[in-house]
């Protein structure tokens, strides 16, 4: 674009790869130059268009984040923390488990299934789910609101092939979302996925699944191009009032990183097929101690 509207003769080319800060610095530098070269004649004018400039920059940057629309969680608490009030569609999201679950990826899969259930509920289109081991269980997906009939699975042991399959999925018509369970991920690979998602408007989810603690330690902190990074940690279930056994399941959901948003942390009841996601009921009327002294509930 050209900045002809700003000042005659002052043209600024914005590189799409630059973040807002870089662009703003370029603009500032130019403004400084102009003011110096014109002996501060235009100083008031120059400062006046700075807010306008910021707005323009924000608009230029926005397409990369939420141009394809957002999927609200329907929970004010979470939606507030996300730019434009929801999970960006046509973007790459990363979901991590915690502790021993980093190996099995059950929590990440369940969290993704809940989101995908909401994503696929309207309209048709399939979900492509690429995984290293065929251990995803349909009834479990259904319990989190994702109809297993809407999922095409690709099982291949190598990370590179999973990434390749994801990228293919992100270019294909008839796909609404792509999920990949990936161990090793380079910044370049994640960047490719993010660009492919942006281009096609298909939402992509990276579920991180690590073979062992060593790989987890290496990979956990590496930066990548995902728009958000979530970590799901399991919490002790809340015992039900009158019954022993495993009670209401809860997660701690952490938004570790979010482009143009703030990191945050919630406690959440594990969503199910009917109400996909619900925050823990403010944890207000939680009983102080289980009312029943028995530890196990018998069902059989």
């Amino acid at each position, binding site marked *: 674009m050209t900045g002809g509207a700003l000042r005659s003769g002052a043209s600024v080319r914005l590189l799409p790869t630059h973040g807002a800060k870089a662009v703003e610095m370029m603009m500032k530098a130019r403004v400084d130059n102009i003011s110096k070269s014109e002996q501060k004649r235009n100083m008031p004018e120059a400062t006046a268009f700075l807010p306008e400039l910021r707005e323009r920059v924000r608009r230029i940057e926005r397409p990369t984040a939420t141009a394809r629309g957002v999927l609200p969680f329907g929970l004010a608490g979470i939606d507030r923390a996300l730019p434009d009030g929801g999970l960006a569609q046509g973007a790459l999201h990363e979901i991590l488990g915690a502790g021993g679950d980093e190996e099995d990826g059950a929590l990440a899969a369940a969290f993704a299934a809940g989101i995908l259930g909401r994503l696929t509920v309207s309209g048709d289109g399939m979900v492509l789910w690429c995984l290293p081991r065929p251990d995803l269980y349909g009834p479990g997906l259904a319990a989190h609101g994702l109809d297993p009939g809407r999922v*095409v699975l690709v099982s291949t042991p190598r990370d590179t092939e999973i990434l390749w399959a994801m990228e293919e999925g992100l270019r294909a018509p008839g*796909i609404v979302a792509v999920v990949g369970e990936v161990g090793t991920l380079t910044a370049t690979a994640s960047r490719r996925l993010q660009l492919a998602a942006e281009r096609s408007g298909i939402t992509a989810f990276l579920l991180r699944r690590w073979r062992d603690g060593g790989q987890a330690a290496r990979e956990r902190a590496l930066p990548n191009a995902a728009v958000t990074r979530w970590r799901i940690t399991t919490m002790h279930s809340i015992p039900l009032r009158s019954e022993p056994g*495993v009670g209401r399941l809860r997660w701690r959901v952490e938004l570790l990183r979010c482009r143009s948003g703030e990191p945050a942390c919630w406690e959440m009841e594990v969503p199910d097929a009917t109400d996909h996601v619900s925050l823990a009921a403010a944890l207000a009327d939680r009983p102080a101690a289980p009312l029943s002294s028995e530890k196990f509930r018998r069902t059989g």
Partner: protein
Amino acid sequence: MPLADALSFLPSLATAAAEPAEEAAALRRLAEWSGLYSPWTAPDGTDGVRIEITGSAHLWGGEAALAADLVTRLDRQCIAGRIAIADTLGAAWAIARFAEAGESAVILPPGEVRAALGPLPVEALRLDPTTAQGLRRVGLKRVGDLYAMPRDALARRFGETVAERLDQALDNLPEPLSPLGEAPTRRVRLSFAEPIADPADLMLAAERLTADLVRRLAREGTGARRLDLTFYRVDGRVERIRLGTARPSRDPRHLVALFKERLDTVDPDLGIEDMILAAFVVEPLPAEQLGLPHPNPPPRAGEGRVGAGKETSGVSPLIDRLGNKLGLAAVYRLEPRESHIPERALVRVPVAGPHPSPPPCSRGREGPAKRGGGGSDKPSRPIRLFEPPEPVEAFWLLPDDPPFRFIWRRRRHQVTSADGPERIADEWWQPEGSGAVDEIRDYYRVEDEEGRRFWLFRAGFHGWDRPPRWFVHGVFS
């Protein structure tokens, strides 16, 4: 004659160790290469290749022309050989090996088998050496000597083989050739005057072959499900691209794109002289406007094959791409089945495979919350299911209790709360011992001190001859 004796007679004798495995491989390659002439080819013993040319000789301008072409090509590969064309496999085998030396190709006119085989030694009937020796011992030296013998006497004295081989050679008994690969249903061939090696040329040839095949398929109203593009190299090797498609297809652009992706796996070496495109599985595909998106595709014959048809039809190009790189079995769908046995409640159905129309998936949204314990009408199921279940070392107090501690993958888990048991036994209508469940299982959903939730089960009872064993079958969210 032992090697030492032979060397003493002729010290300059060149020797080489026999390598049966490599020779067999080379013979197999030659048989594969012979696919050029006919789809029905197979290696024959350790020193021959059989080619069934019925119905394909005219494509080469007759049997003589075919034989001449074969001789030239074998010459170029420095393979000394003898070619025989006859009415039966047995006769061709005999003539190729036992006819008097002369020209390198012998073509036996139809109906002359009996006369031609008569003067050949009995070994020409593909008999093992002991049988042949036995025949010789009683004075039956020529095949012709056997013609007059009563069959039952032959069978009594020398076993069924002699009579059977004789009948096969004389065309009284059919002898089908089992080809190396599966025989294709449609085949188109393209030969080049000069060998080609440039990828762009190969692509162009592939396009022409595809167009040829597609024209035929369109005329018949069918689409291909499995395709082979075979490249015959100058040096007698064969390169192959094998493709499968999720639904019958005769869209040339789609097929060519699939070939193009795999073309770099083909090594043309010094050049390719022939290419054959063969369709192995074709299925009805009525005429339709290809390439236009159908908002609601009309129901058609092939619909049942692709799962919930409408949904996968849009993604079938993607499935083809994934399947052709990773193997078609790697791409699958989950389909619920009515079974209470966890691993049977779900089957992995290859997206590309044949597929009866599935029942509508109703598990998606049914019933109230299944989790959380209170008022659940259905037991909850894990999101990851391990197959096979992973054994754990468990510690428990009472025979019916869930464990209070278990060790899984070398880590200790302290159970803080548990639900259960849910008893699952084998399906009684299955025959004994056929099921996945060989013992009665009691499932528990347990939560450990970290808050992780597992699906444990105990196989067997207390008091049985075998102590109960514990397994982790899945992980809950």
